[in-house]
């Protein structure tokens, strides 16, 4: 549904987005990760046609965003960063405006408003002015606007920003649910959301894609991936040392795999060793790898930018 080829955006001498290429198909939820200022919002603004690309192409549902913007925009529901909404309107008035702009009329419009009000839990504030809403409600009002025409493509810029943990949970479930039938791109810097909602994730840093894969694959890039942590009476590091690099972590021992060992082999070796040495194991697990470790390793922290 979304095709992006070699997308570039320069602001003055600065290349904010530098040759980004990816596709998102229907039924996919793509998590867009990266440190602040990595080019996430800029990329999303180019997908939705708010800012024109300096080079490269974006097409949505086969419509080029620059050449046939109206056709492309009709397919997209967009939640901009910071979830803007007209403060002097009521929630209902705002959603009615969005419905009008999307060409919904009469019964279809009434139903669409009812549907998004329910979907985004806005019942209690429907007739309230937007400037009197709390941040969470305001955010969901803007999200409701993005969903009003049941779009095939959803572009959500930090959809869970400013929500409380319960609301975050609800919104993630909603995104995952919507992703079954639509193409969804959402940006975040909360890594747990990748596991909670995405079928695929892209990490960008300084305008370039530095990782692209399923959450599983990304976690596999972690140094920790495949390491075996073992705890119990009698366990000692010296005995484990021949299996790989050993490290003591919170009273347990962790063995890192060496070379291209199969995932199962290391843990098997540890079990055999434990049986031979007569250790009384209390815990034994194979680490999956941590996303934040991957994230920190492949992106540059703010302080390292010149």
């Amino acid at each position, binding site marked *: 549904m979304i095709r992006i080829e070699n997308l570039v955006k320069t602001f003055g001498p600065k290349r904010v987005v530098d040759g980004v290429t990816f596709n998102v198909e229907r039924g996919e939820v793509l998590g867009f990760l990266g440190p602040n200022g990595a080019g996430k919002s800029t990329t999303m603004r180019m997908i939705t046609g708010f800012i024109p690309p300096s080079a490269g192409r974006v097409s949505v549902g086969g419509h080029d965003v620059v050449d046939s913007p109206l056709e492309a925009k009709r397919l*997209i529901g967009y939640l901009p960063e910071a979830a803007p*909404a007209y403060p002097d309107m009521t929630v209902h008035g705002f959603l009615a405006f969005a419905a009008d702009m*999307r060409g919904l009329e009469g019964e279809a419009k009434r139903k669409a408003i009812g549907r998004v009000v329910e979907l985004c839990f806005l019942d209690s504030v429907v007739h309230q002015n937007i400037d009197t809403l709390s941040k969470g409600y305001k955010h969901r009002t803007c999200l409701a606007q993005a969903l009003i025409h049941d779009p095939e493509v959803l572009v959500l810029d930090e959809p869970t920003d400013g929500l409380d943990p319960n609301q975050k949970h609800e919104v993630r479930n909603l995104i995952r649910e919507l992703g079954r039938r639509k193409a969804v791109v959402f940006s975040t810097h909360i890594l747990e959301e990748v596991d909670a909602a995405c079928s695929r994730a892209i990490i960008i840093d300084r305008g370039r894609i530095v990782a692209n894969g399923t959450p599983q694959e990304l976690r596999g890039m972690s140094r920790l991936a495949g390491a075996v942590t073992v705890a119990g009476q009698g366990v000692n590091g010296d005995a484990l040392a021949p299996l790989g690099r050993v490290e003591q972590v919170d009273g347990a021992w962790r063995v890192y795999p060496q070379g291209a060992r199969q995932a199962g082999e290391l843990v098997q070796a540890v079990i055999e060793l434990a049986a031979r040495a007569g250790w009384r194991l209390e815990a034994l697990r194979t680490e999956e790898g941590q996303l934040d470790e991957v994230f920190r390793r492949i992106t540059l922290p703010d302080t390292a930018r010149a």
Partner: protein
Amino acid sequence: MISAWKSVRTIARRELASYFASPVAYVFLVIYLLLTGFFTFTVGAFFERGEASLISFFVWHPWLYLVLVPAVGMRLWSEERRAGTLELLLTMPVTAWQAILGKFLASWAFLAIALALTFPVVITVNLLGSPDNGIIVAGYLGSLLLAGAYLAISCMTSAMTRNQVVAFILAVVICLFLILCGFNPVTDLLTRWASPGFVDTVAAFSVITHFDGFQKGVIDTRDLFYFLSVIGFALFATGVILRNYRAG
């Protein structure tokens, strides 16, 4: 499929409703009516003139609108930029043109409402004497076009900044220039050192020169063309400014 005109109407309706959503609109209307009354009857000496015309009503409009119209137009785009709703509006399936036209027409309609509310002055002059109502209609048309020209300029300055005050001041300065280049005391000053041809050329850019005809009941196509081209140019410039803003 939503037609282009329908998008314009939807945007215009929202914009007009937003004027009346706050008390500012009513405050504006009251101030506008008080000021027109004050200028017409007190400063313009409506009764002392002893003639059944609205000359003392219309003659102040270029000056009155100088402050009032930018006050109406200043928020059009700067507020959208400040609140971030510009991004929302322009990622909906509309062209920038439809949005510009919709917002402009809404605020023009608001000014038309304000102007229409001055109807008691027409009734008054008709009760007191027998004025030429054709001249009055022409005066109203001219006044509406004048307001439209100022408004389009305010629209343009509003697109330049996210700060409404800056938009207001810029609009006032540009509109003041359009008044002064045809204002008699200024043109008299110019004739001392410039050729009459030059002075006439400069004066041809002034709203005063083109508004004069309407006050006398003459609807000249050149005057119509002037006001419509100021509106057209300023709205076109708005489009260019917004495009540059988006391109970064």
